[in-house]
C-alpha cells in the first residue's frame, strides 16, 4: 500500500486532469467536469487495493514492486484508452478486473509453478491448438486484415498472446529438465528448436509476423542464459536480419512494412500514413505533452492498441514515455533479480523469460512507433487495448510474484549471475537507444515535424481558437470566424473573392491568404511571445488570431467581378504609385463556403475555377511585349529621335481592336498590338537590351506579394535569330499581376512599385498597425522621360489615360486578349494601373473592361 500510494496519486491527478480537459479546451468560465473518468479510476483503485492486500497477506516474501508497477501501468493504460474511446476503455477495465481475479485464484494454489513445469507439453500444445484453430474459425474484430482472433460470444481471444507466455513456460521447463553436461549443445536444444520453428511457421502462415519475430528473439535470449553461451545473443541480431531479408523478398506485407519504414515520407497519405502521423503526434507532445485530453492523438489510426505509445507521447510528452520505459525496465530488472534468487532452475528461467518478454515486447512496439524498427503489430505491455494481451501480462506478473516467494537461501554462483547482468545491461542499453530516438522526434526534430503539411492539428486549433477576420480597405468584412470555442467555422462573406482569400478546411487544406497569412491570422505572429507560450501550455491552442485589413476595395472589386462575369480571365487594378492592390478579379471562381458538395466537380472542371488567375495564372505575353520594346527604345532614343520604321500590316485581331479608329498608322498598330508591327519593333531592337528592360520591369521575378504566385518564367534565349527571338518573347508566360505592375511603372514615371495586398493588422490591443510587407522598395524600371514618352505615345484621345492591347500570336494556339493601361502624369487623383486578361481573342471587350475600370473613379467609385 505505501509503495502503491504515489502511483494512486498519479492516476488520481491524471483522472482529474482528463475530467477538466473539455472545459479547458472550450474556455468555459465555469468548469463542467467530465465525470465519466471517475468510473474507470475507482474500479481500478478498488481492484488494485484488494489485490495488493491479498498479496501482502497471502504471499510472504513476494517482491514488493511487481504488483504496484503492474497496477499503475494497467490503470494508466485503461485511462488512456478510455480517453480515446470510452467503450473500449470500459472493456479494458473489465479485462483488468478479470485478469486480477485470475491472479487471485492462482495466488495461493499449491504447486502452481510445479504443475506448469510438469505439464509443459500440454500447455504448449494447447497454445498451438488455439493458434491452429484461427486457421479455421479465425475472425478479425475489425472485419479486415489478418484473422488472428477466436470469438466466444462477444469476446475475442487472440491466441498468439497466451501462446507467448505458454512458450516461455515450455522453454523454461524444457531447459530446466534438459541441461545435462554430457549432452552436446545440439542435442540439448534440438527438440525445443523444432517446436519453436513449428510455432514460428504457424504464426508466419497467419501473417502474425510481430509475434513470430518476438519468439525468435525470446528463444535466443533464453538459450543465452540457460546454456550460458553468450554467442546466442550475437547470433540473434544476425538471424533476425537474415529472416527480415528473406521475408522482404517472400512476403508483400513485409516488403510494404520495410519499405515504408525506410521511406516513410514517400507515401504520407497511403501506406505510411500511420507512421508519419505517429511521428508528428510524438513531436506534438514535445517534452511535457499537450496535457491529458488536450491533444489530438486520434489522428493516428489504431491509437488505442498498436499506436498507444504515440497517444501517450502526444498528451504526456517525453516525460510520460520515459517514465513508461523506466517502469518496464525496473519491472524487467526486478524480474531478473527474482530469477537470480529463485530456488529452482525452472523458476530462474521462467522469471528470466517473463522479464525478457516484457522488455522485448515494449522495445518492439515503441521502436515501431518511433520508426526505429519496422512496425510489428505486437502490443505495448499493460497499455495497449486488448483483453488477451492484458490478461496474459497480468498472469505473467503473477508468475513472477509466485517465483519471488520461493527464494533460494543462496546467491547464484558468479558465472550464472554474470549472464543475467549481461542481459540486464543489454536491456538498459536498448531502452537508452529507444529513449534517444524518442528525444530526437520530440525535441530535436519537433519543429520540422510539426511544420509538415501532413500535420492536421491547425484544423483543431481553428475549431477551438478563432482565426483573425479579413477586412477590405473600406472596412467591409471579407472573411469571418463564427460560432463558439469548439465549434468555430470559417466563412468567406464575399464568396467571389474565394480565390484570393482561400479556404482553411480540415479535408482540403489551406489556400490563398488563409495559408500565406497563417501566422498572423492564427496569432503566431504579432502576439506577445511569452503570452503565446503560456497559452499553448495551458490550452494547447494558439492565441486568438489577429485581424487583417487588405488594400482590396470591395466596391471596385464587385464592379470588376460584374464586368468579368461570364468571361474567363482576370483583372488586376493597382494604385500605380504605391502598388496597393485594389482589385483582384478572376472568372470562373468558386465558393469557399461550399467545398464539401462541390469538391469533385471543382477538381474535375477544365476551366480551373480553383485557380487564382490574377496571381497564379500564366499567360503568353503575346503582342503586349511591344511595350517592353517601346520602353527600351524610348530609353535610348534622344527626345528628338523617332522610333525605327516598322512594317504595319494590320491583322484581323488588331483591326477589330482598333474598330472605329482603324487607320494604317504604325503608332496605332503598336497600340493595338498588331502582331506584325510588334514583331518588327522587337526585331529592330537588340535582344539583350529587351531582356534587360524586361528584367528591370520585374517580369522574370515573382512579385513580392502576400499570396501565392506562379513561379516566374525564364527569359527567352537572346542568341536566337531575330524572328525566333520575337516569337520566344511573345511566348514568355506572365501573370496578370506582373503585367499590371509593368503598367504601373509606365504610369508612375518609370518607377516600378511592389504589389501591396495587405494594408494592416490589428494588434492584440486593438490598434491597426501597418503590415510590414516583405516586398522591395520601388525601383526605377525605366527613366522618367521614357515613361512619359510611352504615356504620350499610347495616350487615349485627350484623356489623362493611356492603354495598349495585345493578342496571342496565331501560332501559339488559344486566343487571348490583354489590355494594359493606366493614368498619365496629367491625371489629378489616385494614379491607377490596370491589367485585363481574357482567355478569348476579344480585344474589344478587354478594352471596354479596362477603360471602364480606369474611369471608375470619375464616376464616384473611388478607392
Amino acid at each position: 500500500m505505501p509503495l502503491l500510494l504515489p502511483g494512486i496519486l498519479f492516476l488520481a491527478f491524471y483522472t482529474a486532469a482528463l475530467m477538466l480537459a473539455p472545459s479547458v479546451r472550450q474556455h468555459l468560465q465555469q468548469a463542467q467536469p467530465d465525470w465519466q473518468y471517475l468510473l474507470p479510476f475507482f474500479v481500478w483503485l478498488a481492484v488494485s487495493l484488494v489485490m495488493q492486500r491479498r498479496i501482502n497477506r497471502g504471499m510472504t516474501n513476494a517482491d514488493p514492486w511487481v504488483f504496484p508497477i503492474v497496477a499503475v501501468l494497467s490503470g494508466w493504460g485503461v485511462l488512456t484508452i478510455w480517453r480515446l474511446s470510452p467503450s473500449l476503455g470500459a472493456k479494458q477495465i473489465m479485462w483488468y478486473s478479470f485478469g486480477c481475479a485470475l491472479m487471485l485464484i492462482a495466488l495461493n494454489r499449491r504447486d502452481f509453478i510445479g504443475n506448469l513445469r510438469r505439464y509443459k507439453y500440454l500447455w504448449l500444445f494447447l497454445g498451438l491448438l488455439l493458434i491452429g484453430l484461427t486457421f479455421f474459425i479465425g475472425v478479425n474484430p475489425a472485419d479486415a486484415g489478418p484473422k488472428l482472433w477466436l470469438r466466444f460470444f462477444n469476446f475475442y481471444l487472440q491466441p498468439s498472446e497466451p501462446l507467448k507466455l505458454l512458450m516461455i513456460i515450455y522453454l523454461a521447463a524444457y531447459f530446466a529438465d534438459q541441461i545435462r553436461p554430457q549432452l552436446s549443445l545440439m542435442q540439448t536444444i534440438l527438440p525445443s528448436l523444432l517446436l519453436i520453428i513449428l510455432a514460428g511457421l504457424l504464426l508466419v502462415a497467419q501473417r502474425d509476423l510481430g509475434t513470430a519475430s518476438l519468439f525468435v528473439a525470446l528463444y535466443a535470449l533464453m538459450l543465452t542464459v540457460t546454456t550460458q553461451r553468450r554467442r546466442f545473443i550475437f547470433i540473434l541480431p544476425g538471424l533476425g536480419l537474415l529472416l527480415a531479408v528473406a521475408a522482404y523478398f517472400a512476403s508483400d506485407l513485409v516488403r510494404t512494412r520495410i519499405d515504408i519504414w525506410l521511406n516513410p515520407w514517400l507515401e504520407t497519405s497511403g501506406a505510411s500514413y500511420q507512421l508519419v502521423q505517429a511521428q508528428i503526434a510524438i513531436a506534438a507532445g514535445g517534452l511535457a505533452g499537450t496535457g491529458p485530453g488536450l491533444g489530438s492523438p486520434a489522428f493516428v489510426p489504431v491509437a488505442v492498441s498498436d499506436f498507444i505509445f504515440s497517444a501517450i507521447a502526444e498528451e504526456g510528452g517525453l516525460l510520460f514515455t520515459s517514465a513508461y520505459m523506466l517502469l518496464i525496465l525496473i519491472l524487467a530488472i526486478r524480474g531478473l533479480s527474482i530469477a537470480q534468487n529463485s530456488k529452482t532452475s525452472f523458476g530462474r528461467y521462467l522469471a528470466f523469460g517473463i522479464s525478457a518478454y516484457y522488455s522485448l515486447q515494449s522495445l518492439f512496439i515503441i521502436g515501431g512507433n518511433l520508426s526505429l524498427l519496422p512496425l510489428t503489430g505486437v502490443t505495448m505491455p499493460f497499455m495497449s487495448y486488448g483483453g488477451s494481451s492484458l490478461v496474459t501480462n497480468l498472469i505473467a506478473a503473477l508468475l513472477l510474484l509466485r517465483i519471488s516467494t520461493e527464494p533460494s537461501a543462496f546467491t547464484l554462483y558468479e558465472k550464472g549471475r554474470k549472464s543475467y547482468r549481461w542481459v540486464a545491461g543489454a536491456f538498459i542499453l536498448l531502452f537508452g537507444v529507444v529513449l534517444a530516438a524518442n528525444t530526437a522526434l520530440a525535441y530535436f526534430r519537433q519543429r520540422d515535424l510539426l511544420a509538415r503539411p501532413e500535420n492536421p492539428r491547425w484544423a483543431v486549433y481553428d475549431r477551438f481558437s478563432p482565426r483573425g477576420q479579413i477586412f477590405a480597405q473600406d472596412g467591409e468584412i471579407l472573411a469571418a470566424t463564427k460560432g463558439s470555442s469548439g465549434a468555430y467555422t470559417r466563412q468567406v462573406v464575399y464568396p467571389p473573392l474565394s480565390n484570393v482569400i482561400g479556404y482553411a478546411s480540415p479535408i482540403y487544406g489551406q489556400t490563398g491568404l488563409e495559408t500565406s497569412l497563417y501566422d498572423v491570422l492564427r496569432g503566431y505572429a504579432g502576439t506577445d511571445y511569452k503570452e503565446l507560450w503560456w497559452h499553448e501550455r495551458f490550452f494547447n491552442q494558439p492565441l486568438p488570431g489577429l485581424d487583417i485589413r487588405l488594400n482590396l476595395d470591395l466596391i471596385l472589386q464587385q464592379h470588376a467581378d460584374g464586368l468579368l462575369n461570364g468571361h474567363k480571365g482576370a483583372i488586376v487594378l493597382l494604385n500605380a504609385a504605391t502598388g496597393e492592390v485594389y482589385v483582384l478579379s478572376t472568372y470562373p471562381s468558386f465558393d469557399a463556403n461550399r467545398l464539401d458538395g462541390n469538391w469533385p466537380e471543382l477538381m474535375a472542371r477544365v476551366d480551373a475555377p480553383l485557380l487564382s488567375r490574377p496571381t497564379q495564372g500564366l499567360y503568353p505575353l503575346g503582342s503586349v511585349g511591344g511595350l517592353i520594346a517601346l520602353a527600351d527604345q524610348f530609353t535610348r532614343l534622344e527626345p528628338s529621335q523617332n522610333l525605327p520604321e516598322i512594317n504595319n500590316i494590320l491583322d484581323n485581331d488588331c483591326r477589330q481592336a482598333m474598330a472605329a479608329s482603324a487607320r494604317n498608322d504604325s503608332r496605332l498598330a503598336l497600340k493595338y498590338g498588331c502582331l506584325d508591327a510588334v514583331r518588327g519593333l522587337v526585331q529592330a531592337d537588340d535582344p539583350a537590351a529587351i531582356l534587360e528592360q524586361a528584367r528591370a520591369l520585374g517580369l522574370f521575378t515573382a512579385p513580392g506579394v502576400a499570396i501565392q504566385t506562379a513561379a516566374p518564367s525564364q527569359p527567352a534565349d537572346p542568341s536566337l535569330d531575330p524572328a525566333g527571338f520575337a516569337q520566344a518573347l511573345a511566348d514568355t508566360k506572365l501573370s496578370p499581376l506582373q503585367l499590371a505592375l509593368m503598367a504601373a511603372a509606365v504610369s508612375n514615371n518609370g518607377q516600378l512599385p511592389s504589389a501591396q495586398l495587405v494594408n494592416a493588422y490589428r494588434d492584440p490591443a486593438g490598434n491597426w498597425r501597418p503590415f510590414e510587407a516583405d516586398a522591395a522598395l520601388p525601383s526605377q524600371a525605366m527613366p522618367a522621360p521614357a515613361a512619359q514618352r510611352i504615356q504620350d505615345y499610347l495616350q487615349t484621345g485627350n484623356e489623362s489615360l493611356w492603354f495598349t492591347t495585345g493578342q496571342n500570336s496565331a501560332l501559339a494556339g488559344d486566343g487571348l486578349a490583354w489590355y494594359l493601361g493606366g493614368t498619365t502624369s496629367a491625371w489629378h487623383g489616385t494614379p491607377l494601373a490596370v491589367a485585363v486578361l481574357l482567355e478569348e481573342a476579344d480585344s474589344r471587350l478587354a478594352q471596354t473592361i479596362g477603360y471602364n475600370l480606369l474611369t471608375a473613379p470619375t464616376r464616384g467609385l473611388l478607392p
Partner: protein
Amino acid sequence: MTETLNFALRVAMLIALYAFLAFAVVTLWRSVARPSSAENQAIPPITLTTDIDENPKEAVFVSAEVLLGREAHNDFTLEHPTVSSRHARLQYRQNQWWFEDLQSTNGSYLDNLRIEEPIVVKDGDTIYCGEVAIHIKIKPLS
C-alpha cells in the same frame, strides 16, 4: 481559472509519477547494492586439499564463492573422470561456509550421504566429489 487548476493537476500528476519512479529506483538500487556489501565482510580462509592419482593439491580461498569442477575455469580444478565439468561450489553466507552440488552427474557426498541441497561444512570435514576426496580446513577469524 479552470485552466490554472488543470495545469496544477498536470504538474502534480508528473510529480506523483516521478515520485513513484524514484521510489522504485531507490529500492531497486538498494537491493542491487546489498549483496556487494555482504561480500565485503571478512571471510575466514578455507583450505582445500585433495590427492588425485597421487598428485597432492592444496589451495586457500578467501573469496565468498569457490567453484569446483573438472574444467580449467573452476577455482579449484579436479581432473578426474567422475567429476563433472562444473561440479559444485562453496559459498560463504550468514557467517558460514556452505557446500552446494551443481547438479553434477556423479553427485557429491558427505559421510556417505548424497548432498541434495546446500549444507554447512566445518573444519575437518571430508567431502567426495564423485570419487575425489576433498579435505576442508577452515581457519576461524581472530
